[in-house]
């Protein structure tokens, strides 16, 4: 409970005693590159393969001849939009970006760089963490959209080129009974997950004490806590919105 209270105060301090708006523009752009663009390759690879595997495994499980082939892409589509793109990408995001944020802030803490900012009269939480959270909120939904597209494309490649499903069936399955709200739901999830990963990892990194060993530990805890938070939020959002 004490940790949660400290985390809430930490989040509150993002918005007080901030520097000039101009200062944050460049910082946020730098973080967008660091957090978003630099995650693109990993997210793309993971999404494409997950889509491909989902297609093959769905086809493997649909053994009844009464079920039409287009159901495969229908399943892959809903699975991708509702879960794989926002949630599995979030786990990957937590592993890559979360550990990076916690490691960076942890190192800044133990080498007194954060103290240096504080002594200069700069709100170090706002200066260091706010751009990371904002950049995550900007770039992560974009990554989810790309991941969703690539996952469905991966499914298409695996399905069509191995003869599991015809191109026409796959495309028909993508269109049939499409619920637009699912995309909106995926976007809500992506904003929530982006905030959780960036803020929890920043919190863990910012309050690191000790040396190199503790920085490593903080990175691991940041990833673990982010993953747990993602799964909890995933469940709660599904309960509330579906």
């Amino acid at each position: 409970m004490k940790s949660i209270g400290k985390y809430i105060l930490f989040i509150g301090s993002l918005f007080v005693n901030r520097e000039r708006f101009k200062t944050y523009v460049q910082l946020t752009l730098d973080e967008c590159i660091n957090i978003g663009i630099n995650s693109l390759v990993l997210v793309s690879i993971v999404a494409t393969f997950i889509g491909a595997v989902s297609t093959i495994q769905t086809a493997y499980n649909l053994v009844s001849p009464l079920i039409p082939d287009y159901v495969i892409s229908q399943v892959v589509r809903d699975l991708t939009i509702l879960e794989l793109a926002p949630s599995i990408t979030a786990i990957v995001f937590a592993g890559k970006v979360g550990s990076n944020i916690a490691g960076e802030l942890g190192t800044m803490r133990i080498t007194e760089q954060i103290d240096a900012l504080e002594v200069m009269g700069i709100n170090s939480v706002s200066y260091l963490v706010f751009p990371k959270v904002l950049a995550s909120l900007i770039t992560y939904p974009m990554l989810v959209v790309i991941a969703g597209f690539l996952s469905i494309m991966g499914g298409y490649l695996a399905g069509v080129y191995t003869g599991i499903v015809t191109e026409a069936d796959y495309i028909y399955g993508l269109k049939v009974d499409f619920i637009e709200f699912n995309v909106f739901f995926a976007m809500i999830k992506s904003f929530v997950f982006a905030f959780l990963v960036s803020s929890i990892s920043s919190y863990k990194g910012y309050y690191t004490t000790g040396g190199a060993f503790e920085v490593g530990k903080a990175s691991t805890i940041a990833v673990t806590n982010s993953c747990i938070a993602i799964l909890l939020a995933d469940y709660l959002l599904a309960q509330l919105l579906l």
Partner: protein
Amino acid sequence: MIEIDNIKKSFDGKEVLKGISGVFEKGKTNLIIGASGTGKSVLLKCIVGLIKPDEGTVFYDNRDFTNADRNLKTDIRREIGMLFQGGALFDSKNVEQNVIFPLNVLTQMPLDEKLDRVNFCLQRVGLENVNKKMPSEISGGMKKRVGIARAIVNNSSYLFCDEPNSGLDPQTAITIDNLIKEITEEFNITTIVVTHDMNSVMEIGDYVMFLHEGLKVWEGSDQNIMKSQVKELNDFVFANKMMRTVRNEETPG
């Protein structure tokens, strides 16, 4: 001038500072000395506001810093420059970006003026042609110089140095010490240096405060330190052979 009044601080029930008071005057190099674990760095962190004291008050030129509101605290902090033990340079920025950083964040100066100021400060600390080097590409002594340049770039009124010559060879350590003293006198700022290096005490200590187990047990100038009758201070000062030799030569028989 910085005044501290009855500063107390405990961690997990252990009293680290037991009520320390003192006055650090402007234009002088004020030293806080003592053995490891006596609370020197904690006292310094209480003075600059990185740690909130349990009791007591810190005054910057008669302005109550400890109980100040957020705005006054920020204003005072913007007059502070600090050199950290490891330099605390920002790893992701080169030397020039490190030194210009306070100007970028805290002022609205035009870029050419900021660069002039950065170059002036780097030259003042004896560094040239290192503007584009990263912190990982320069030596420990150079990092300290860059740290000093960053600390004074914003025309600071107060300079704090935490173990400025730790990890440096004796010659570089003396150079850094002298640089701190020169800058203090040249810009008429209030400087507080935390150290356990007796060479620093003898080189630059205009005013020396000696801490032992969280208490101030002696204060005075570097001239008087050798004549002190305080046992804890004598144990500290004459711990090394060189200082004992100096004492024996000064007081034969």
